[in-house]
C-alpha cells in the first residue's frame, strides 16, 4: 500500500514493495506513482519515460562537451580556440567539464572504502561519475559539491540489492523466469517428443545424460507463484508494458534509474525539502539564510524545546549547529552511520511525505520543518544529540564537544534512535508554526516551551516520557521523578506550613526569603562548581574512590557561607558535627549548599521540582560514593532550576534531598526502581524518617571520610535491611512533603524520630561489632587497621547520634 502520511509506530499497513527498497524508494521519492491502485504496467510506463529522458540527456550533454571536429561551418576562431577565455566557447565548456570530472573523481575515490568491493569497481565508478557529471551539467547553478556523491551512493546500492534479490528469486524459480523457449517441458503426452528433443541436445553437447522427463522442478506457472515472487516476476518481465525499457528491476538501466532518483531527491519533486538547496550558498526566499544554516537552526530550536539544558549547554560552549549539522544534513547522515543503518534511516525518512503540511497563509519558523520529511530530518538530529546527551554535557570546550558529535558511536541502537525521532517529528511540525498564528496553536506552542525539559503532554509526548533511550538509569530516574512531580502537582499544595521543622530547615540552610541574596553572589562560582561536579560525576566511572576525595574537596568551599549561627537543635547538630568531624558536616551542609547554589542559578526555565531533588540526590550520591551511573544521569537535571517560591522550593530540596538520597541509595544497592507512587502517609512518618536519613548520611559520610570502602560497602549491604524499612517512608515522604502538619504532631513526630534514631544506632553498633569481629579474625592486616580506625570514628559518631536523639526526645 502506499506509504502512510504520518509514520506511526507499528500500526502501518504493510507497504507495497516493502522488501524491494529500490522500488519503494522510487515510489516515496515520487518517481513512480504511489497510489495503491497503480498497476505494475503503469509503473513500467513511468519508468520507461524517465529512462528515455535520461538517455536523451546523456547524448546531448556528453556530445556537447567535446570540441568540434571536422565539418564545422567556420566557427569563430577567436572564440573557439583552446586558449579562449570565453567560458561559453566549446573549449571553455570542455575545460569546465574536465574540472568537474576531476572533482568528482577525487570524491569517488574516497567513497565508502569499506564497501569498496562494490563501489570501487571500474564500472560502478564510471557510472557514478557519469551520473554526477550529468546532474551537475544539467544544474549549472549548483555545480558539483562534495557530498553529492554520498547522496547518490545509497541510491545505487539499493538498486543493486534489489537486483541481487531478483537474481536469487530467479534461481529459485528457474523455470518460471526462464526465458529459453527451447527447453519447454511439454505435457506427458508429448513425452516422446520431449525425449527425442532432449536426446538431440545431448548429442550436440556430446554427453550422454540420463535424461529425466520428470525432471524435478517447481514446474510452477506464473499464476501459481506466491504473490511476492509473482510481483517480482512482473517487475522484471521483459515482455510486459514497454518491453525491456519498462523492466523495473533492470541492471541495464541502473544508471538511468539512479540518476532519476538522485534528481528527484535533489530537487525535492515540488516538495519542501530539496537536498540541492543544502549545497548552495544561495539564501532562501523566506529567510536570509542559506537553507542548510536555516535547517541547522531549526534543529537547535527543536532541541531547545525538547531538552533545554542540553541546548543551553551547547550554546554556552559556542557550538553553532552548523558546525556538525552541515555534514549531517548535507548527506542525510550518510557519514554518521554505516550503510546498513543508513538504509533503515532513509527508509523512514523517505516514507515521510515531502509535501508541506502547513497552509500557505500560516506563518512558520523554519521552512525545513514544514513537511514531515524535513521534520524527520530535524527530529533525527535531535534524537542523535539526545543519544549523546551525557557525554556532551560532560564536555567543557567546543572542540571536545564537536569531536564527540562528529564521531558518532559505531553501533548505536537504531531502533531507539528512530523511534525517538519519530516521536519528535510531530513536535517539530507543531512547533514550526509561529505564535502569531491561531491562538490555540500558540497556546500549545507556549505550553511546549514552558514545560521546558519536561516533555509536553502532547498526543505524541507520553511516548517520549517513557522513551527508550539507552541510558536506562537516567531515563528511569527521570521518569520516577517526573511522576513524582506530577503527583505533587496533583496533590495541589503550593505551600506547606509545616511549622517548626520547616523553620528549622530554613534557618539551618539559611533559606529565609531575605537571605537569598548572598547566594546569588555564588552563582558564577556555583555554576563552575556545578560544572566541576558534573565533570567529576562523569569521571566517576573511571575512578570511584577518587571522586570521594574530589567531592569532599569542593564542599568546604561552601561551608562557611552556609553555616549559620542559629539556635535550634539542628544547629546544635551542626555544631556538634563541626566538633566531631569537619568533613561530615561539610558533607551535609555542602549537600544543601550545592542544592541552594544550583537553585539560585540563573536558569529559570522549567518548573521541575523533580529535577532539583535529582540534583540534590546527585550530590548526596557522590558523597556516598554510590552508584556512579545514577550520578551521571542526575547531572543533567542539575542544570534545571527554578527561581520561584524560593523558600518552599528550597525546603523541598532539603527534605527531598535527603529523602531521595536514601531513595538513591536503595536503588544503588538493590538496583530496583523505586515505585514512587506513594500513598498518603501520615506526617509523623515524615519526621521520623528525617533524622534517620541524617544519620545514614552521616554514617556513610564517615565511611567515605576514612576512605574505607570495604567497611562502608559492608555497611551498605548490612544496612540494606534498615534502609528498606525506611524505604516506604522515604518514598512517601519524598512526595508528601507538603502535607500539613500541626505543631503538636510535630512534637510527636520528633519524639518518634528520636526513637527510630536510637533503633538505628543500635543496629549500627551491632554491625560494628560484627565487622570488628570479622576484621579481627581476618588475616588481612591493612583491613584490620583500617577497620579499626573506621570503627573507632564511627562509634564516636554514634555517640553523638545518641545525644541528638535524646535531645529530640526531650523536645
Amino acid at each position, binding site marked *: 500500500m502506499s506509504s502512510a502520511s504520518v509514520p506511526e509506530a507499528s500500526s502501518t499497513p504493510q507497504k507495497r514493495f516493502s522488501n524491494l527498497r529500490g522500488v519503494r524508494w522510487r515510489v516515496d521519492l515520487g518517481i513512480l506513482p504511489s497510489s495503491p491502485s497503480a498497476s505494475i504496467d503503469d509503473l513500467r510506463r513511468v519508468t520507461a519515460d524517465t529512462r528515455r529522458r535520461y538517455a536523451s540527456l546523456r547524448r546531448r550533454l556528453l556530445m556537447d562537451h567535446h570540441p568540434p571536429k571536422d565539418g564545422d561551418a567556420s566557427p569563430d*576562431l*577567436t572564440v573557439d580556440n583552446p586558449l579562449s577565455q570565453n567560458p561559453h566557447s566549446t573549449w571553455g565548456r570542455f575545460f569546465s567539464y574536465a574540472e568537474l570530472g576531476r572533482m568528482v573523481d577525487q570524491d569517488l575515490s574516497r567513497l565508502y572504502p569499506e564497501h569498496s568491493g562494490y563501489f570501487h569497481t571500474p564500472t560502478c565508478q564510471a557510472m557514478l561519475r557519469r551520473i554526477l557529471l550529468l546532474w551537475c551539467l544539467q544544474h549549472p547553478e549548483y555545480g558539483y559539491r562534495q557530498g553529492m556523491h554520498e547522496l547518490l551512493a545509497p541510491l545505487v546500492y539499493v538498486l543493486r540489492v534489489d537486483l541481487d534479490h531478483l537474481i536469487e528469486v530467479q534461481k529459485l524459480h528457474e523455470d518460471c523466469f526462464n526465458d529459453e523457449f527451447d527447453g519447454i517441458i511439454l505435457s506427458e503426452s508429448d513425452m516422446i517428443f520431449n525425449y527425442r528433443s532432449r536426446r538431440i541436445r545431448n548429442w550436440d553437447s556430446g554427453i550422454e545424460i540420463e535424461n529425466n522427463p520428470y525432471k524435478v522442478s517447481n514446474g510452477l506457472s506464473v499464476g501459481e507463484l506466491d504473490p511476492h515472487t509473482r510481483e517480482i516476476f512482473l517487475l522484471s518481465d521483459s515482455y510486459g508494458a514497454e518491453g525491456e525499457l519498462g523492466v523495473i528491476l533492470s541492471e541495464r538501466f541502473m544508471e538511468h534509474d539512479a540518476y532519476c532518483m538522485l534528481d528527484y531527491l535533489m530537487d525535492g519533486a515540488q516538495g519542501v525539502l530539496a537536498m540541492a538547496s543544502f549545497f548552495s550558498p544561495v539564501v532562501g526566499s523566506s529567510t536570509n539564510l542559506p537553507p542548510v544554516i536555516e535547517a541547522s537552526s531549526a534543529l537547535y530550536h527543536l532541541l531547545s524545546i525538547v531538552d533545554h539544558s542540553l541546548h543551553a549547554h551547547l550554546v554556552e560552549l559556542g557550538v553553532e549547529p552548523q558546525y556538525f549539522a552541515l555534514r549531517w544534513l548535507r548527506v542525510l547522515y550518510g557519514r554518521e552511520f554505516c550503510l546498513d543503518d543508513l538504509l533503515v534511516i532513509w527508509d523512514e525518512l523517505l516514507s515521510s511525505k515531502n509535501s508541506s503540511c502547513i497552509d500557505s497563509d500560516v506563518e512558520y519558523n523554519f521552512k525545513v520543518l514544514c513537511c514531515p520529511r524535513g521534520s524527520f530530518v530535524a527530529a533525527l538530529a535531535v534524537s542523535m544529540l539526545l543519544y549523546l546527551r551525557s557525554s556532551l554535557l560532560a564536555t567543557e570546550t567546543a572542540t571536545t564537544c564537536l569531536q564527540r558529535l562528529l564521531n558518532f558511536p559505531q553501533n548505536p541502537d537504531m531502533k531507539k534512535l528512530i523511534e525517538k525521532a519519530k516521536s519528535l517529528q510531530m513536535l517539530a511540525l507543531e512547533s514550526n508554526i509561529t505564535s502569531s498564528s491561531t491562538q490555540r496553536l500558540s497556546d500549545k506552542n507556549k505550553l511546549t516551551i514552558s514545560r521546558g525539559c519536561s516533555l509536553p503532554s502532547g498526543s505524541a509526548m507520553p511516548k517520549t516520557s517513557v522513551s527508550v533511550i539507552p541510558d536506562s538509569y537516567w531515563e528511569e530516574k527521570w521518569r520516577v521523578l517526573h511522576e513524582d512531580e506530577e503527583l505533587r502537582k496533583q496533590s495541589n499544595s503550593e505551600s506547606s506550613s509545616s511549622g517548626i521543622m520547616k523553620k528549622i530547615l530554613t534557618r539551618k540552610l539559611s533559606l529565609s526569603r531575605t537571605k537569598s541574596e548572598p547566594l546569588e553572589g555564588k552563582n558564577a562560582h556555583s555554576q563552575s562548581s556545578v560544572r566541576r561536579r558534573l565533570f567529576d560525576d562523569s569521571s566517576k566511572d573511571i575512578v570511584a574512590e577518587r571522586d570521594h576525595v574530589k567531592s569532599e574537596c569542593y564542599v568546604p568551599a561552601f561551608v562557611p557561607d552556609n553555616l549559620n549561627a542559629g539556635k535550634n537543635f539542628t544547629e546544635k547538630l551542626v555544631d556538634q558535627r563541626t566538633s566531631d568531624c569537619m568533613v561530615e558536616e561539610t558533607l551535609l551542609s555542602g549537600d544543601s549548599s550545592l542544592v541552594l547554589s544550583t537553585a539560585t542559578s540563573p536558569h529559570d526555565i522549567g518548573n521541575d521540582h523533580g529535577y532539583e531533588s535529582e540534583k540534590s540526590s546527585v550530590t548526596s550520591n557522590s558523597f556516598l560514593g554510590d552508584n556512579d551511573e545514577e550520578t551521571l544521569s542526575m547531572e543533567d537535571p542539575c542544570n534545571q532550576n527554578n527561581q520561584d517560591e524560593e523558600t518552599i522550593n528550597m525546603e523541598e530540596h532539603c527534605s527531598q534531598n535527603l529523602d531521595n538520597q536514601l531513595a538513591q541509595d536503595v536503588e544503588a544497592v538493590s538496583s530496583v526502581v523505586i515505585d514512587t507512587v506513594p500513598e498518603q502517609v501520615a506526617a509523623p512518618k515524615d519526621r521520623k524518617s528525617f533524622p534517620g536519613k541524617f544519620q545514614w548520611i552521616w554514617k556513610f559520610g564517615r565511611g567515605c571520610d576514612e576512605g574505607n570502602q570495604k567497611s562502608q560497602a559492608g555497611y551498605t549491604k548490612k544496612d540494606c535491611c534498615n534502609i528498606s524499612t525506611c524505604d516506604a517512608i522515604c518514598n512517601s515522604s519524598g512526595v508528601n512533603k507538603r502535607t500539613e502538619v500541626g505543631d503538636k504532631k510535630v512534637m510527636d513526630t520528633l519524639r518518634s524520630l528520636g526513637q527510630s534514631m536510637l533503633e538505628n544506632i543500635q543496629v549500627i553498633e551491632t554491625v560494628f561489632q560484627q565487622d570488628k569481629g570479622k576484621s579481627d579474625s581476618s588475616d588481612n592486616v591493612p583491613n584490620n587497621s583500617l577497620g579499626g580506625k573506621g570503627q573507632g570514628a564511627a562509634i564516636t559518631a554514634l555517640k553523638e547520634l545518641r545525644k541528638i536523639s535524646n535531645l529530640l526526645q526531650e523536645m
Partner: protein
Amino acid sequence: MVLVLAIGDLHIPHRAPDLPAKFKSMLVPGKIQHILCTGNLCIKEVHDYLKSLSPDLHITRGEYDEDVRYPENKTLSIGQFKLGLCHGHQIVPWGDLDSLAMLQRQLDIDILVTGHTHQFKAYKHEGGVIINPGSATGAYSSMTYDVNPSFVLMDIDGLRVVVYVYELIDGEVKVDKIDFKKTATTQSAH
C-alpha cells in the same frame, strides 16, 4: 585532446621586455600539457615562467641562451605523433624548407618545430609537417625588424593534429587553424 604549445625566440630581456599582455592573459596554467620551446629565451626567469604553465617543458639551445645546458635537438612522442625540436640557427640557409626537411628525415619525426627566423611558417610536405612558431614577443631578428608576435598551439587527437596559430596583429589577437592528418601507414623500418 592533448594540447602542445610551440613557442620561442622571446629574447627577453635583450630585445623585448616581456610577452604581450594579451598573450599572457591567454596562457594560463592547467590547459596545456606540453611545451616545445625553440630557444633564445634567454634568461632563467623565462624558463621558470614557462615551467609554470606546464610541467612538461622541452627546450633546445638558441645562440643567445644563457643556459648552455640545453640540447641542440630534441625528439619526443605525443600520442601517435613523433615531434622534433631544434632552434634552427644551425640549419643553413636559415628557414630553408629543403634543409629543414633533411633534418626531419634525419631525426625521423612527423612534426618538426624550429625557430630563429621570427616568422610564422607551417609547411606540409610528404614526410610530415614543419612548423615555425615565430617570436612570441615580436623581437627583431637578424634579418628583419618587422616581426609580429606569434605562437602556435597544437591539438593532437589521435591521428589528427589541429594547429592553432595565434598572432598579434595591430594589437588584436588573430587565430588561425590548420588541420593535418597523419596517414597511418609506413612506419620507418629503423
